[in-house]
């Protein structure tokens, strides 16, 4: 018996039976650790026995062993846990634990009441914790989430990074035109908002594709997910104002449908970006090819006044209709389609005063402008996705867009010595189609191959007609109107292939090969009543072709708390332009290096370097001038300019979600050079616009914090935002310094809101912006905006809600001082148990007196006035069935 037992001991075979494991747990100072926990578990993590240590730090564990090995773990609060595998036999195990290097912070974790939950790359916000009932659309809620910023145009960014798209319950709606959802979908449908960082473009590439894209996923309330649901808003007001908004959604089963309609003449813009560049929306099977499509030369620019939203002075008449459908035809085939159409008519009236500083004298020119813009846009896209197997995806996408912009300017200007009238009519059309075919296959061991082919065709006829006596000096032969006509047509063919993989140690690598062919024609000429203007400076006739290929390799390596990224791309370009007899072949290398250091869960430091060399497009090759507005011309390089930019970025971010605090700081150094530049002189009638090499330094500091945790005793919620910027620029031409200056800016915004349980609550806020421009040691002026806000919110019962806000905006700069006062009020009545909500709202109740505002623009200072109109909204209906 003894011999057998001895044999089994020696051979390593352990006879199952009662086992006792005992020992002592001490600290590194040999001090016994009482109240610690010893846990014995099996390989499948199931706990078989546990015990706690007594005052001497000793413990005893007893178990009926049924396996040969167990994992013994020693835990103690404030110390680093230790685990070790032990055999199933009675023994003594001693532990010496080290103290935790970081102090256990005073931290509060809530159960399901946590307003923000962070899980690796996903940050989830509980909407009801941030909403206060005044929100109407999704954008209004997003503005209140910490870490999320919405700019004046509706562009959304999270932790400083612009988002790629918004998903609705995981489904894509309207591709990358997320403003369609954020500006039109009702806020009361939301339950949670998830911000997902580093999302792969498709689930097949998850874990393989290195991506720094961020998407927002909107999760709807339970009752909204099951049926057809939507809202209808109808409003009518004095001075024939109307506002209507309707949306209908169904996210049931295989068909996910969304329809949005909107119309108003109250100044609100349902989708700010009326430009639809094909290059901006290559939503594709894999991470799409990089496009360099040139923007149209002519653009009508609506007036922008700092500190005052465009809604307050824009007179418009806009309508929008959009529909999106995602249909799962079979388990392998999916169809996605969307279309939207938009039409608008915007009018702005401004009067300007220009002060020209010429050799100690000042010349004042006054003019009044009337600007009318009529944009119209039509976009349709169809996508077919086929999954032949679980690891493959085949995708075809077709896209068609048509855009039209007509604008009309009328200007009457006078100086003490003369007066003149000028009229400008601009029309641009853009028609484009795009087709794309993509294939992805995921191989075992985390590798993937993607193949893409695309074709794009854009046609952009543009025309600008100017009638003015000013051209007499430039074009003596012209009588009456001068018309600039531009025809621009681009065809692009391209292919791309990627081979990507992720290694077991989480290193990622990718190899890319691309090829493309671009053929672009640009023709522009000036005509007048007298005939075509002969001066060849104003005529361009370009027809160029570009062949391009590249090979790129990159890798991302995680090393504990440090993430390294390195990449390089070898590019080959061949360009040929017939009319200028230009030919060129270039080869260049663009390296990229990045390091991210995660100091801890909340703090991240990042350094990034990138060199980018590109090749010019047609507009850069143009030899002569292109008239772009009644005052300005644009001149191209007339040569093969290859700008090279070196960018270095250092950023630090801290996001303590439990305290709802986020900080993002970034310093960027960007240097841009090109071998050849041509320059045009400035005279007093035209503004020079051209590209010059300009290395500049930019410091931007952004700090956002929610102080509510600290003021919770007073039940006051407050938000503080601070921005500081320093932008210095320097431009040189052939080593001769042209200009050197700096723009400094500082702004802050503080909002305090009370949150008493009672009937009345108050809001007070203050916003201050200051910026100044200094050039060559001279101050070109400063701008200062101050804006105190005060508001009262009264909720006499659950059904009634009244809020009134008053805003005073003070705009001051070197030469002028303007003040505006606005009073807005909103009364909302929600009858209990009914689906209807009634709202009476008024904006700009006290029309501001005719005011002037100043804008600093190079060497010109202008002042503008405009009218403000009050409006009222009547009723709003919610429904679901």
């Amino acid at each position, binding site marked *: 018996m003894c011999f057998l037992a001895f044999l089994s001991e020696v051979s390593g075979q352990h006879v199952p039976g009662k086992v006792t494991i005992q020992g002592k747990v001490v600290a590194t100072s040999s001090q016994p650790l*009482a109240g610690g926990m010893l846990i014995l578990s099996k390989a499948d993590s*199931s*706990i078989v026995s*546990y015990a706690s240590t007594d005052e001497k730090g000793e413990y005893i564990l007893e178990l009926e062993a049924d396996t040969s090995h167990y994992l013994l773990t020693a835990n103690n609060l404030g110390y680093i846990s230790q685990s070790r595998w032990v055999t199933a036999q009675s023994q003594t195990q001693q532990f010496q634990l080290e103290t935790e290097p970081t102090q256990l912070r005073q931290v509060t*974790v*809530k*159960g399901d009441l946590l307003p923000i939950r962070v899980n690796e790359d996903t940050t989830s916000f509980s909407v009801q914790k941030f909403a206060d009932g005044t929100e109407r659309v999704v954008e209004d809620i997003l503005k209140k989430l910490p870490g999320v910023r919405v700019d004046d145009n509706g562009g959304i960014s999270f932790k400083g990074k612009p988002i790629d798209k918004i998903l609705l319950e995981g489904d894509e709606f309207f591709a990358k035109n997320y403003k369609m959802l954020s500006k039109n979908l009702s806020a009361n449908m939301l339950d949670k908002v998830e911000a997902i960082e580093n999302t792969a473009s498709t689930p097949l590439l998850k874990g393989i594709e290195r991506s720094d894209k961020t998407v927002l996923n909107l999760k709807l309330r339970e009752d909204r997910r099951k049926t057809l649901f939507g809202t209808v808003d109808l409003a009518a007001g004095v001075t024939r104002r109307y506002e209507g908004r309707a949306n209908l959604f169904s996210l049931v089963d295989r068909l996910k449908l969304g329809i949005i309609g909107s119309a108003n003449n109250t100044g609100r813009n349902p989708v700010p970006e009326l430009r639809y560049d094909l290059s901006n929306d290559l939503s594709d099977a894999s991470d799409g090819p990089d496009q360099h499509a040139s923007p149209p030369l002519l653009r009508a620019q609506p007036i922008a006044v700092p500190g005052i939203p465009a809604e307050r002075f824009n007179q418009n008449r806009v309508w929008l209709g959009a529909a999106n459908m995602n249909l799962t035809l079979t388990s392998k085939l999916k169809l996605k389609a969307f279309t939207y159409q938009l039409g608008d008519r915007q009018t702005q009236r401004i009067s300007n005063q220009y002060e020209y500083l010429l050799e100690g004298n000042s010349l004042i020119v006054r003019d009044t402008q009337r600007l009318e813009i009529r944009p119209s846009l039509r976009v349709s896209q169809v996508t077919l996705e086929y999954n032949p197997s679980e690891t493959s995806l085949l995708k075809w996408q077709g896209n068609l867009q048509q855009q039209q912009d007509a604008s009309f300017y009328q200007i009457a200007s006078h100086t003490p010595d003369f007066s003149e009238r000028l009229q400008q009519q601009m029309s641009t059309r853009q028609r484009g189609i795009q087709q794309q075919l993509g294939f992805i296959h995921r191989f075992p061991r985390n590798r993937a191959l993607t193949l893409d082919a695309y074709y794009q065709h854009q046609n952009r006829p543009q025309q600008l007609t100017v009638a003015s006596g000013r051209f007499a000096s430039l074009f003596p032969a012209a009588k009456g109107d001068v018309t600039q006509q531009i025809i621009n047509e681009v065809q692009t063919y391209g292919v791309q292939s990627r081979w990507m993989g992720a290694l077991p140690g989480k290193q990622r690598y990718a190899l890319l090969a691309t090829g493309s062919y671009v053929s672009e024609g640009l023709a522009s000429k000036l005509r007048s009543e007298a005939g075509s203007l002969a001066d060849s400076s104003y005529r361009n006739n370009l027809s160029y072709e570009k062949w391009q290929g590249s090979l790129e390799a990159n890798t991302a390596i995680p090393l504990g708390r440090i993430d390294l990224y390195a990449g390089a791309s070898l590019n080959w370009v061949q360009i040929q332009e017939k009319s200028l007899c230009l030919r060129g072949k270039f080869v260049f290398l663009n390296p990229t290096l990045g390091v991210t250091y995660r100091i801890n869960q909340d703090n991240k430091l990042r350094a990034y370097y990138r060199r980018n060399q590109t090749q010019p497009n047609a507009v850069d090759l143009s030899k002569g001038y292109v008239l772009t507005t009644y005052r300005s011309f644009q001149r191209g390089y007339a040569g093969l300019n290859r700008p090279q930019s070196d960018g270095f970025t250092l950023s630090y971010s801290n996001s303590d979600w439990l305290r709802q605090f986020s900080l993002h700081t970034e310093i960027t150094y960007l240097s841009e050079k090109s071998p050849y530049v041509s320059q045009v002189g400035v005279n007093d009638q035209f503004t020079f616009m051209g590209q010059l090499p300009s290395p500049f330094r930019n410091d931007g500091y952004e700090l956002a914090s929610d102080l509510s945790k600290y003021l919770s005793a007073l039940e006051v919620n407050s938000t503080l935002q601070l921005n500081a910027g320093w932008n210095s620029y320097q431009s040189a031409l052939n080593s001769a310094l042209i200009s050197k200056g700096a723009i400094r800016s500082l702004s802050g915004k503080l909002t305090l809101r009370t949150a008493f349980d009672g009937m009345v609550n108050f809001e007070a806020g203050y916003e201050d912006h200051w910026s100044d421009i200094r050039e060559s040691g001279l101050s070109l002026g400063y701008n200062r905006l101050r804006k105190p806000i005060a508001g009262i919110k009264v909720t006499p019962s659950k059904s009634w809600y009244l809020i009134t806000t008053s805003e005073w905006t003070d705009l001051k700069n070197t030469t002028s001082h303007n003040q505006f006062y606005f009073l807005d009020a909103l009364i909302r009545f929600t009858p209990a148990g009914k689906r209807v909500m009634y709202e009476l709202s008024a904006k700009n109740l006290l029309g501001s007196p005719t005011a002037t505002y100043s804008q600093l623009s190079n060497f010109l200072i202008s002042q503008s006035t405009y009218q403000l109109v009050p409006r009222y909204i009547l009723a709003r209906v919610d429904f679901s069935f």
Partner: protein
Amino acid sequence: MNFKRFVRLDFFICFILLTTHSNAQSQLGVVNYLQLEKQPSDPNYKGHGVLRFSKTNSVYTEKSVLADKEGSETSAETNETRVYSKSSTSNVDYTYTNFAAQQILSNERILSKYFFVKDTLSKPNWKMVPGKRKIGTYECLKAVTTFRSRTYTAWFTPAIPVSAGPWKLWGLPGLILEATSSDEVVRFLFQSIQLTPNGPPLQAPKEHKKPVTLAQFVTFRKEKFNRLKKAGTATGSFSTNGVTTWNTFSVENFPNE
């Protein structure tokens, strides 16, 4: 002379502080629970439970969420008006457990009268069952035990290696964040936790009354309810369908007869 006296006093105070501090463990965290009970007279009873714990002891206090409510409330559905007035007594139900000394002190109630009960701590016999769940940000494991005639399922987190739990549930290799009885009569639901390293000392409550053992308390309780029944008094009773009964419900599940 004065200076010497001052120094002696100062030293004495320091000594007191040091000794009291060394006897009492410092609090490491506070957990808030929602204690739900299906009482015969109040099936929707909601209590707010607070557990303060250290490595070797814990204090659990519980108070009804209505305890501090004042005023009257009319329910539209049942057309019933309830009047609330703030409780005049500052007594709350509490349980103090000392794992190291194997001691339990609790404030047990018979109707509105409180008794100070002192007893030896008995460790519930826990059985590990498969199951994993995330509560808050903590990964929790599952265990089951039968305690005071009820079967409880508890979710505990080894990330916080203390034996504490709500009420008298303790003895797992991690903090118990949630526990429910199989008959759904008693539920302790996790609401929030605040970790407070080097918090204030966690001390045993002062013995204002003469302590009784648990067995003695159970006997008192049975006798009291029998006397009430015999006397037919309405004190502490409620009526359902014409039948008068007393709220003899207790989480302890004491025998009533």
